[in-house]
């Protein structure tokens, strides 16, 4: 079984790891028809107000539904996404 791998370069996207805040972009979420990506608050960071988290990142979750269309790779302004097997 071929398994899709999607890698996000968190030094480019993810504001807890030196990248941009994905809430300001989210292009990958919008162009991906099967909705493979999830935008979520970062783990293990110190938030001033845990009810209003400020550190976010993107994780490709539903990998088995990715069709390798390449739209996310093209749309990402940070060139942070790689899709391979």
């Amino acid at each position: 079984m071929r398994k899709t791998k999607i890698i996000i370069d968190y030094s480019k996207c993810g504001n807890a790891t030196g990248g941009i805040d994905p809430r300001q972009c989210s292009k990958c979420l919008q162009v991906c028809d099967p909705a493979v990506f999830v935008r979520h608050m970062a783990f293990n960071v110190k938030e001033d107000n845990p009810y209003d988290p400020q550190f976010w990142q993107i994780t490709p979750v539903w990998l088995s539904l990715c069709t390798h269309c390449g739209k996310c790779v093209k749309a990402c302004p940070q060139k942070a996404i790689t899709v391979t097997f």
Partner: protein
Amino acid sequence: MCDWCMKHGAGGKWYLNARNYSYELAESMNLQAYLEEQWKNFEQVYIRKIMGISSIGLGYKLRMPIIGRVLRWSAERMIHSESRNRNPVRADGHFGQVIPIEEAKLIMLNLAAEPIIQNYCMCRMMQKGIKDVCCINFGVLSTVIEKLPRFIPENTKVRLGREEAAAVLEEQNRKGRVTTVWFQPVPYICAICSCEAPQCGGLRLRMDFGLHTVYKAEYYAEVDPDLCQGCKTCIAGCQFGAIRFSPTLKRVLIDQSKCFGCGLCRDRCPHDAIRLVPRDENPVLRGKY
């Protein structure tokens, strides 16, 4: 009626039983603290490891021999958990059912506990980055969500009256969203959502992975061959791919094994050609939720 009606329906449908909406129930389950824990970091739910396994690549994990079967079994158990030591961060005991719009309105007007709020749809926000005011939450959950700024709509009212909330749901139905009612956690009911696949987490787990996060409605759609004019309006409304136009018959066919009974096709048919039939009345579809 499904198993959940037997257990929590007091002789009727689970979502029409007033007790499941009551503050007494929420209090006896200590839900304020539970839901706060669950909602604070809800967007992490698919990424977090649960018993060593996260939802990342779930489709592949479910296909693994043996492990896949165990995983499916434990996921179903978690989704439907009624155990005392439920874990809020796994969203234990959180599942729902599709309902037609008239039942959603009935719930809003008569059963939902106040305060009633409208807020951004979490699924659309976390999977599409889109802010869309459409979820109606009520009872204890409202006061929990009101503490979380990211879900609170800008420039619009948050707390709604019963009629206003019913109107919001009707508007969403008109847009083509599937109306769903949710246990959170079972048997407490505190949300009516207007969902759209594939970015709805509940529909995703059901439609793509066969997990019972969302049950089909107590109804299924039936088309009257004499009334259908073949205009195809209904097809665009079905999120479940259950309707197609037959060039031979010059009318539509509904695949009832695919139909979730949402009623969207019925609601938009200009010729009143579709009706919802109670699932219980059909010997083949009865019990198939």
